[in-house]
């Protein structure tokens, strides 16, 4: 993965968003995000809410993007599809290469619309905000199919029922004729998934799709996505605040803090042996459900910094138990932290990188 800012958009020989041969750097990657920067204008001035985010997703790979509120995880996801509300937010730099051939940030809106919903689909936390309350569930799925594939009315309808069956909705013919408010929370999220997957996208961006659901229903949706992922060979970028949620599902995790990816690597390695003090502190702050109980949790002091007033150095420095002088001077770059891993922390400099 390219850690540092790559060449800017204009330098890559783009024509209508199509890259010149060999311009893409993440060989074989389905999605490559390179130095994404999104700025939010606030009453206090512009805030860099996504600050040089770079990562790649391979075909069929499940990647978890983990962060607390205000970390910039949702704006990162929205930026990928250029869905950030402008104003107040604006993508100011970066490259988002899909399938090794197009830069989504340089694409004309019309061409982007072909990719959105067809090649890259997105589901959100609250399905009610994305479902149209006056259309039946079946009509809405059929509409997506007709729009993107030019399918006929009858074929689209049949596909809608088939998709509802795919997401394990019982009695899909009847459900297709129902309106969103007639469905339970879990059923609605399944219907959203049916709509998102109707055109067989290659990448699904899931923004906290289970956060509003009860724990048993959440587990059902995670299990369902696990099955669908294998069935469709889907790549998934799953945004969540819960480090444990994707354990055993996501191959890699990206941990965001104050607009930057502070640590990334194979999920199992990160959960076992976190390298960034923020990841480590987060893991210690979560009750495991197996301790002696009534013991103090290891809390992280302070709060997430205001994106409009980030400290000049590492954004986590004011809360970090292992802070050093240089942490306050400049933000650390991504440093190697073991096989396939990196973390933005000066603790990784020295013996570890010299070895």
């Amino acid at each position: 993965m390219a850690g540092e800012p790559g060449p800017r958009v204009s330098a890559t020989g783009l024509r209508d968003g199509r890259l010149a041969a060999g311009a893409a750097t993440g060989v074989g990657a389905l999605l490559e995000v390179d130095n994404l920067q999104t700025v939010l204008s606030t009453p206090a001035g512009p805030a860099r809410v996504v600050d040089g985010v770079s990562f790649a997703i391979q075909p069929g790979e499940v990647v978890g993007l983990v962060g607390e509120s205000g970390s910039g995880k949702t704006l990162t996801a929205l930026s990928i599809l250029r869905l950030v509300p402008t104003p107040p937010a604006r993508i100011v730099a970066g490259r988002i290469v899909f399938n090794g051939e197009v830069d989504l940030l340089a694409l004309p809106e019309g061409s982007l619309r072909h990719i959105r919903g067809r090649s890259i689909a997105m589901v959100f936390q609250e399905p009610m905000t994305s479902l149209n309350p006056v259309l039946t569930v079946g009509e809405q799925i059929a509409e997506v199919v007709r729009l993107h594939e030019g399918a006929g009315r009858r074929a689209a309808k049949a596909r809608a029922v088939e998709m509802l069956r795919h997401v394990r909705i019982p009695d899909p013919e009847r459900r297709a004729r129902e309106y969103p408010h007639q469905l339970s929370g879990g059923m609605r999220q399944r219907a959203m998934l049916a709509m998102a997957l109707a055109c067989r996208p290659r990448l699904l961006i899931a923004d906290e799709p289970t956060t509003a659901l009860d724990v048993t229903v959440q587990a059902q949706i995670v299990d369902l996505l696990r099955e669908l992922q294998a069935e469709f060979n889907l790549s998934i970028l799953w945004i969540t605040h819960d480090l444990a949620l994707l354990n055993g599902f996501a191959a890699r995790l990206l941990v965001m803090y104050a607009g930057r990816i502070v640590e990334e690597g194979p999920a199992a390695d990160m959960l076992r042996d976190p390298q960034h003090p923020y990841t480590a502190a987060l893991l210690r702050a979560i009750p495991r459900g197996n301790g002696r109980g009534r013991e103090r949790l290891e809390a992280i002091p302070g709060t997430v910094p205001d994106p409009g007033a980030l400290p000049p150095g590492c954004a986590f420095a004011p809360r970090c138990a292992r802070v050093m002088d240089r942490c306050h001077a400049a933000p650390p770059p991504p440093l190697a932290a073991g096989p396939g891993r990196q973390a933005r922390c000066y603790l990784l400099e020295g013996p570890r990188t010299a070895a």
Partner: protein
Amino acid sequence: MRPEGAGALLEVRQVVKHYPLRAGFFGRGAGTVQAVDGVSFTVRRGETLGLVGESGCGKSTLGRTLVRLLEPTGGEVVFDGLPIFSLKGPDLRAVRRRIQFIFQDPAAALDPRMTAEAIVAEGLVIHRIGTTAERREKVRQLFEQVGLGAIHLRRYPHEFSGGQRQRLGIARALALHPELVICDEPVSALDVSVQAQVVNLLLDLQRAYGLTYIFIAHDLRLVHHVSDRVAVMYLGRIVELADRDALYREPLHPYTQALLAAVPRLEPGGTRLKLFVEGEPPSPVSPPPGCRFHPRCPKVFDRCRRQDPALKPAADGRLVACHLYE
């Protein structure tokens, strides 16, 4: 560990809370929401009783009904010998002073037009405790105890972060020296890193003042962390009530088993157990006949469809409402 023999502080007997369901503008009766339907348990002095369940199980309604923030439909609640449901006027006010609430969303529970100082002092004013100067000093002490500074006294709720607002809510609850604090999802709205701070504060205060907690939450990992005993609710009923370790180590009720199986695990490679419960809870307007969990229960048998199991002691003394253990 716990002061044994201190006895029950709160006794809850067959508490029922039904809401009439209104249809249309003129509110013709359209059924009843059986939010809480015959719940009994006791809370021992100094312990934390965790109350878990999914949305709609009635856990929040139950918490509010206990102190008549919602008028009960039936049952009885005895707090330190006082029958709360039959008390009136000054007697009720006196009991309410001893039982305080901490809500999930402190933003909604705090008057936005009052300063933080006034919010915390309000209870003291209402109950006519102390002179103005004494109250001011008391509030300053409370701020210090919950980790807020003197600079926060004159601020308004919207100027606080989520974690600070919850600290403010805790200070307000503590102002009247309650004995029982009902915590209704007190950290659910907070980020993980801040959650731990507030949980620690609640544990510290419990130790310092010998507080008794009813801790209502949907997060089973958190409930495990803070509770001595845990009651599991499903569709308005308690289905299992046990010591924390027994419940988590060996859940008896199939619903408790399903809940615990669904909890995401942090242990590397420790994948969640394969879930074996399907569907979602039915509406509390028309709960299923027999055992309310039977339509989703993987261990259902004939009797479950006909007969409603009572909450009874199982072999190890815990309470469970399931025909499997009769």
